[in-house]
């Protein structure tokens, strides 16, 4: 149990740049070092972690924890992976306002803002490259982009949860029901 906690605590502490960076770290630790999972199980877990909601790192921690020690294992692993973030960011939040008063810090942050926009564009583009070049996903993508940009331009706000659910619904109808029927005919 304690080992489970420490393993995920370390993974949470040493991975920068979000969940995707964590995948490599989890693989190295869980599959190669600790041998808690086979390569095959890891691939299956990744598929689940990526297709369920929530941060991928949390999904992986919960899954590995459950496979090792049931529900308490998953609670312990999830706490372990979250704890470093919680402590570090809480401490930063105490000092950020005072810290931003320094001119040099404010200067550095004008640069960091640019990097953040760049990183988001890069992540989005990376995902976009993997999107199938078919009429339906492409037109859904274009419509969502159009709605979001128009909302920004005209300062209207509208929950994107609704867009996500609409997309899911279209997916269920087109791929889940119609697609499954076609396969049945074959």
């Amino acid at each position: 149990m304690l080992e489970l906690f420490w393993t995920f605590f370390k993974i949470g502490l040493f991975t920068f740049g979000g969940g995707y960076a964590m995948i490599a770290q989890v693989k190295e630790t869980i599959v190669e070092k600790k041998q808690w999972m086979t390569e095959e199980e890891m691939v299956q877990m990744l598929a689940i972690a990526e297709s369920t909601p929530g941060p991928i790192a949390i999904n992986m921690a919960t899954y590995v924890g459950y496979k090792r020690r049931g529900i308490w294992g998953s609670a312990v692993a999830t706490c372990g992976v979250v704890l470093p973030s919680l402590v570090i960011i809480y401490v930063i939040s105490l000092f950020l306002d005072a810290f931003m008063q320094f001119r040099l810090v404010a200067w550095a942050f004008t640069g960091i803002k640019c990097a953040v926009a760049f990183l988001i564009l890069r992540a989005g583009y990376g995902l976009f490259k993997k999107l199938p070049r078919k009429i339906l996903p492409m037109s859904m993508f274009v419509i969502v982009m159009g709605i979001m940009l128009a909302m920004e331009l005209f300062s209207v706000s509208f929950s994107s949860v609704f867009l996500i659910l609409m997309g899911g619904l279209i997916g269920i109808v087109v791929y889940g029901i119609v697609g499954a029927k076609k396969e049945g005919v074959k």
Partner: protein
Amino acid sequence: MIYLTLFLEFFKMGLFTFGGGYAMIPLIEETVLRYGWLTEARFSEMLGVCESTPGPVAVNMATYIGAVQGGFLGSLVATLGVVLPSFIIIVLIAAILKNFTDHPIFKGFVRGVQPVVIGLILSTGVILFAKALGYVSLTEFKADWISVIIFALLIGIYWLALKVFKKKLSAIQLILISAGLGLGVNFCFWA
């Protein structure tokens, strides 16, 4: 009751974002601005901090927003909110619904959500980019030359590293470089 609001809003974000932390950024921004929890400028500054500190970006953002709004308890509650949906869903899948993710309805749902999430992420990126360069509103654009120069240099460095040194710069490297550029370019303008 701020704790309950924080918990529910972050629970919702944890529940509706497929595809990892980046997918959560548009939703976090939307929510934070709607409640007036952070200013837009602070939101993008904080994104920079969250990407250069360890841990999942979504958890970092939840902790920060929770802390600003409700102190330590606030950060605890917001983090719990963002983590809980994952936790419940994954435990259910691991325990009972072993083949749930292979079900055609579920697969269809995920395939339908995918293009929407990508659209949300890219539009957020485009908007942040435009705002950094000086976009204010439909009728107002005040070019921020310092940011324009930083962007140009950043893209130049990224491209150079990729093509010449065959190295894809990581998020943390890009943030450190951009902080240096921010210092350098601002200093040149100030001097």
